[in-house]
């Protein structure tokens, strides 16, 4: 089946998923405690002021009416306007998506570059020193909370050695050096757990492949061990690794809020938390839709990439 048709079919099949995401995002917010009008009016607002703001925002209308209005705008590509700042939600997301994507990409790159070789070496030298070190590193990576790692890096590399800034984000337009310089500590912080995850999956997958007959045959043919491990075994072990990398990217884009807070990165995670605290419904709904779309898109790309690593996988 041509790849474009596969793509089109998958896109159609994810529409109901996105519809459910939209409905849940809308209902969960409306049914939870809180009121954007009272937030917007502030601590000293009177009941009359709050009621006037509710009316202006249309929050006094029945829920089905509010939902249908939002869906209608969504179908026209309009994510709405922030209740609090009055800015279009799409603009707010555009302003905040840069740091989140940047730190997600650098984290995944570092995690793959470090995690895959560790996993491969650990499997190749099973039960040896490298394997034990890899296992120990993985356990540490999973066990230590991200914020604790972040503060440790800040203390050592920013406060004591002055190598990197404590916080902040510089967009690419400020220069590539400055951009990378601000991403080093968040990337080191976030990648620890992903290195652990990828190394574990790579090790397990490689162990399974290395025990298979074709590897024994390759070795019997006299191929160099480097070729056996990296060309034959690793390529065959790639599918689970690619899956976990894909899930990792999706998790990172939606789940870096702690790191964004510790390093003061003005990303989507912080926008979500700020909007939840302010009960800024349109922004939360918009961000959830974006997260849902990104998740679905990455899963789709990962699915399609399987056939690249393993031609036996086809799409019907």
């Amino acid at each position, binding site marked *: 089946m041509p790849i474009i048709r596969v793509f089109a079919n998958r896109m159609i099949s994810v529409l109901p998923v996105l519809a459910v995401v939209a409905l849940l995002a809308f209902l969960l917010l409306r049914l939870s*405690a*809180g*009121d954007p009008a*009272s*937030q*917007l*009016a*502030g*601590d*000293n*607002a*009177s*009941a*009359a*002021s*709050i009621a*006037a*703001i509710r*009316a*202006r925002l249309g929050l006094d209308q029945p829920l089905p009416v509010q939902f249908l209005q939002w869906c209608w705008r969504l179908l026209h590509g309009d994510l709405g306007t*922030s209740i*609090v*700042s*009055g*800015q279009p939600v799409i603009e*707010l997301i555009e*302003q*905040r998506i840069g740091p989140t994507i940047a730190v997600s990409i650098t984290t995944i790159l570092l995690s793959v570059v470090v995690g895959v070789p560790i996993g491969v070496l650990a499997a190749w030298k099973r039960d040896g020193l490298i394997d034990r070190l890899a296992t120990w590193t993985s356990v540490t990576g999973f066990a230590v909370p991200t914020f604790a790692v972040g*503060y440790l890096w*800040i203390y050592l590399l*920013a*406060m*004591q*050695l*002055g*190598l*990197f*800034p*404590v*916080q*902040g984000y*510089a967009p690419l337009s*400020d*220069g590539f*050096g*400055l951009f*990378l*310089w601000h991403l080093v500590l968040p990337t080191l912080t976030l990648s620890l757990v992903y290195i652990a995850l990828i190394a574990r999956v790579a090790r397990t997958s490689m162990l399974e492949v290395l025990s298979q007959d074709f590897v024994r045959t390759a070795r019997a043919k006299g191929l160099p061990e480097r070729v056996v491990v990296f060309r034959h075994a690793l390529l065959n072990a790639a599918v689970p690794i690619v899956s976990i990398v894909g899930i990792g990217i999706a998790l990172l884009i939606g789940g870096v809020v702690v790191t964004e*807070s*510790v*390093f*003061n990165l*003005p990303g989507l995670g*912080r*926008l979500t*938390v*700020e909007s939840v*605290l*302010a*009960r800024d419904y349109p922004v939360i709904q918009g961000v959830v839709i974006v997260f849902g779309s990104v998740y679905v898109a990455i899963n789709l790309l990962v699915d399609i990439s399987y056939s690249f690593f393993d031609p036996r996988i086809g799409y019907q």
Partner: protein
Amino acid sequence: MLKEPNRRALLKTGGAAIAAGMMPRLARAQSGKTIRAVMHAPLRATDPAINTAWTGRNHGLNIYDTLFAIDSDFQIRPQMVETYEVSPDELTHTFHLRSGLKFHDGASVTSGDVIPSLQRWGKRDTMGSRMMSFVAEFKAVDARTFQMVMKAPYGQVLQTLGKPSSIIPFILPARLASQPPEQPIAEFVGSGPFRFVAGEFRPGSRAVYERNADYVPRQEPPDGMAGGKVVKIDRYEWISMPDMQTAANALINREIDFLEVAPHDLLPTLAAAKGVTVADYNPQGFMSVCRMNWLTEPFNRPEIRQAVLYASSQVDWLDAQIGNPEYYQTTAAMFGAGTPLASEVGWNTKPDLARAKDHLKKGGYDGAPVVMLQGTDSPLLFGSSTVTAQKLRGLGMKVDVLTMDWGSILARRVKQDSAAQGGWSMYHYVTTTTELTNPLANTLVDTKGKSSGYPGWPEDAQIESLRDKFALESKPAGQKQIAEAIQARAYDVVTHIPGGQFRQPVSHNSALTGIVRAPAPLFWNVEKTA
């Protein structure tokens, strides 16, 4: 003898060299006359007439100007106004604007801008709406002169026009001021000492202001919120930083210049850091408050509210909230210790448990649960409510503590239903003392009740009558006497319980000088010397 360089020093030097190579733009930004300030909360809503939060007020103080302003002695001084007169019958107030006042779009500020600005604000602000109820009409005499004609003499005209906190009567261009007060303004044009850089505004993350080169400051030196607003920096960046530990580290590392609200337990570390100054520029500070709901069981009975008052201890609350006595003081003053209307009548701030139990018995407490809304956002919110819950349980009361974020409290506290139907009985919060200094602006002694009052909805005709009297009184001695009577009555009926006052020092780069002592963070007169 020369010392061998150690590894750490080498790393530092190397790191600094690498860093310097990679950060040319940042270095330029830091070295210029730019102040990077982390404030207590980020700016999101920008219309100071819609949002009564301090962020809206602080934003407004940067870009708008006011007719009058309050100085450090609580005296109201002219700001945009050059001169003003009151007619002998005290009914006509005539104001002459200073020459050279211009909005950021280059248009002159005229009476035609001032009048709709006051009318819009008067529909939103408590003190403003009270004054407007006395206003018969506004007259624009000429471009720089306008009159406010009253129906009856009103004693609080200048205090109202020069009020220092939300909602401040800022002056906007007529085209913006004529918008309905519920409709937020989306164009940021004022006549204040800073211009808002709208293109760099990232709601919740960053707001940027630049010096307004066309601003004509008054000749007097700055004094509180009054006097000459001379801007000595080029740019001021209001940055959001959700993690206070990170903000403190950033200040020590010279990545930011100003940290408005560092937690009190971080202040010793900051004070000891090289190049960081910890100082208090807000003399009145903040006040902790315990508010009870007059509409629902059990606090619909005055004796039970009094029982809570007599069980309360400001020291216990403040210890839980602040911890360090260096930063707090106990006071019964409902209008703020150290302010012109300060008085200690009504309560000694210490617990009297025998009296509390006696009142509880007199009130016929029948085991109705106290539904306490406990904010989790900050120790300032949850510390005091934890103490109160324990005190009330000690008295024999049943207490259900509902923990939630401040946003949920704001939504729930407006519900007038019984506790069982989603209402509430009690919550603690913190406010700036500046908000409380005038009985007309102080919403805690607003006792208009269920129909038009504020959450808690106390209703007391005697206090309302005293507030009306205060509004008409123009002499300070008379005002003080009335305020004292309001406070005494407010303690009798227990409109609320003041939880004591505390200071929140600012931490800043020691290179900043000239910071003005005022009830709000101000960035005029501030210089960055390095």
